[in-house]
């Protein structure tokens, strides 16, 4: 994308997404943990269908979302296996992904990822499927924990701190 259209893109992007970019200036080495932490990111009782919850994982430089969709998913938790979580950095060139109608949409080049089907790029330019967050739900409390990442987070040489 040329510089000019990039500016235009940024003008038209939602403010909430921009907050995430501004956080990405820190060095990855300083931020990334050595192993995937177990992090409580929500509770199934508080999730409303198709209303995603934003969080960062495995560190503060990696925006993600948790969403309850209408159907069973690959890798989903909960009684209906319909709660899934993904990185919200487009794997194509790092733009923010917006959740809508069961998919993540990138407004830079219009890649779209199916959250029910393993984050596959069903349309667009991203040759890598979006990174999916490994979830665990505590059946007793309904708490949902992020416990790993499958796939590379955009812009990194590794999801975790390089050894």
């Amino acid at each position: 994308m040329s510089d000019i259209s990039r500016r235009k893109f940024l003008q038209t992007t939602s403010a909430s997404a921009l907050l995430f970019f501004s956080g990405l200036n820190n060095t990855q080495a300083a931020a990334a943990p050595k192993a995937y932490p177990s992090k409580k990111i929500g509770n199934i009782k508080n999730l409303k269908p198709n209303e995603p919850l934003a969080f960062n994982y495995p560190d503060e430089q990696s925006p993600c979302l948790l969403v309850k969709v209408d159907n069973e998913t690959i890798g989903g938790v909960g009684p209906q296996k319909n709660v899934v979580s993904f990185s919200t950095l487009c794997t194509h060139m790092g733009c923010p992904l917006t959740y809508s109608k069961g998919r993540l949409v990138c407004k830079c080049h219009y890649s779209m990822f199916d959250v029910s089907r393993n984050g596959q790029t069903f349309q667009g330019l991203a040759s890598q499927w979006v990174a999916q967050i490994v979830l665990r739900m505590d059946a007793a409390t309904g708490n949902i924990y992020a416990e790993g990442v499958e796939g590379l987070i955009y812009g990194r040489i590794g999801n975790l701190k390089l050894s």
Partner: protein
Amino acid sequence: MSLFKRKDSLPIPPLDAEKYTTVCQYCSAGCGYNVFVWPEKRSGTAKSNAFQVDLSQQSQLLSGFSYTETMHNVITRKNGNRYNLAIIPAKESRINKGNYSIRGGTNALTAYTPTGQTKDRLKDPLLRKENGFVAISWDDAVEIIATVTKSSIDKYGADSIAMKFYDHGSSGLGFEDNWGAGKLFLSGIQTHYLSIHNRPAYNSEVWGSRERGMHELNYDVDDARLADTIVLWGANAYEGATVFFTEHMMPNLQGGSVEEKQKEFDAGEPAEEGRIIIIDPRKNATITVSQEINAERVLHLRPNLGTDWILANALARIAWENKWYDNDYLQKRTDMVTFEAYKSKSLQLAKSLDAVLAEAEKITGISRKEMEEAAGWIAKPKTGGFKRRTLTLYEKGIIWNMKNYDQVAAIAQLNVLTSNVGRPGTGCGRLGGHQEGYVRPGAPTPGSIYAGGPPKNVDNYITGGGGKIYWVGATDPYLSTPNSKFFKKSVKKRATNLLDYLDNGGIPSDPKAYIAKVLEAFEKTDGLFMIVQDIYRTHTSEDAMLILPAAGWGEAVDTSINCHSRLLRIYDKFLDAPGEALPDWKILALVGNKLKALYEAEGNKVMAERFGGMEWKTDAEVFEAGSHEFGDNKAAEIDEAKLSAECFKGVTHEMLRKLGNEGIQTPVRQDPASGKLIGTKRRYKYSFASKDGLFKWYGTDAWTGYPAEVAKYVDNPTYPFWFTTGRSQHVWQTMYNDKRIPEKLLTLPLPYLEIHPDDAARLNLKTGEMAEVFNEEGSCLALVYVNDATKPGLVFGLMYHAKGTMNNLTSSYTDPKTTIPWYKGTKVAVKKYTGKLDDAIKTVSLLSNNDFTTG
């Protein structure tokens, strides 16, 4: 949880990693890539690495540096050692500026690895025996081919040899391989039964433009950013030439190129965000993405199948009526003698505007209002009287339409009538599919019926029992040729007849005895000796007698040009070809040199000479040898139109290696003043490519309905749906690479059909179910997507897929003027499939790929 193994870190190339420049192996965009190779056990660091990027920093969005899971692989070289391979988009390329598509982003995954998903690459020449194929030596393979070919020429004539080969660049091919094929088949064998990869004959798909004096690649990527209006006509740019669309057209629609326009345009000329007209029967992703960006500046016209040239002529008539043309330009730059035929037949000036447009409305299904709006966007002068700048790009929806010649000619003429060629922001030509790399000795059929044609239909020749040897190179006609079921059935029968004869008493192991028996079979049966030369086994190769292993992309030094700037670059060698696989040109040279030796041995100097000039040792030598075909390229800038579009005379591999991603734009001319080699950014500023430099007009045919092969269906209620085909963004051609890449196969596991919700409801069909699509030509079982991409009464199918081809359904009709097939239109029935659904549907995405809306 993942459907296939994912990575969460990638190796880092050390500072001294091997570095090469190349160009993507896929589409016409030709994105630049940088290749890094380093021993598997070695690593650079975040701060010090061959990428010259600080990897301790997380990449910013749109920074132009992307290194993803799909851009890395581990290869084994012939020395037995393992190496990391990273193939990443080149930020310094002005074509892609670090951007890449879902195809190019997986270039690294296509590299040959002995234990990975490409392990089934062809490694040895294979000869068909009683129970399948057995490996043989190159010496034996070459002896068999050359001796059988020679005997066949001597006994039955050169036309007993037929071929179907690529004529293009990219896909692991280039000028080198094309020159090799040209020398063997055109100079040496001299058969008339030549055909080009995707079609039944040896022809240009755009003689309708070339015979006007306008080569189809006459613009630059910059023109897509400078145009006031972009017209995409039967050209799904977002999905087919993805980076060209997203990097050059999209910024224009967003208003991101206004400053560039202000610099290039005339003083006082209005410069604003661009408009786009998309002419396509289907509401494809190019349209819906454009609408997402700026719906008010998108016009979508959906003509009835086969009627586009009537629409182009109607738009031209509106422009004429409004005097949206420059009479001075027409007088000076175009041939006013042939213009009379254009005025009478295409513009139909003897009829009133109302009568012409009423008829056009009826034929095309496009309203007069839409036509007037489109004509205005194309041709109406801007405020201040400045000429509008319109870039018109057409592709398979036009060239593979009914009446190929007239369709292309009508669009070319609309653009020249409105002065939309040769200025910044203008141009008229192909969007392209693959890249190009054509250099061959003169073809036996130089043009359409108006210029020495039409060329012979090789499919009809082969299926009708003609020919003895059929050599297929880097194409899979069982999937890709029109009316493919009939073709496959006919070839299989003839191949089986040959095999049965050879098998009677056992297939001889000794090459000489084998050759003798093949020649006997030629006498006694209609047997066809098919040779398939490719990188993998193909659907067609199951009926070959010999399979030859070719080197792929990155396994030989190749050169090609892209379509959107004619940018010539080097595609360097960074991989070892598997086993005994050889570059195409080398295989062809081995056979040519053997034929030469066989004719010399019997003292036939005339024939031996025909096979001379193939004694090349290196890729660079073949490139240089081919360049002489272009003749003298000493020319001043104003004479560029006299040069062949792909002329690279004087350019060497060494020079291209130094130029890297910058490349040089063809035609390359030797400047008479400076003696330097200079590329050509944009064509036809001064004159056209005809003898007198004037654009030659042509009066197109009137509408006379559909050809018999399709007309039989028109009022037949058994086949209620119009049917058209196209491609998916994900996969390249027959999926020869992509079916081995999990990301691709999981997302596109089956051939698919798009159907309108109204029609689907009537057939009780839902997304995710399967249906049989069929007509009298053939059938295909497909995964169903119900969406609004098609109109009621029209269904769309993926053209071909590794698991089934919709070309079974297309007719055998070709344009009598050019022998180009109408792949894109016929009629079919659709029947719901009630068997068990394919397991792949459990993991495939069933979401609509033309809906980008959020919220």
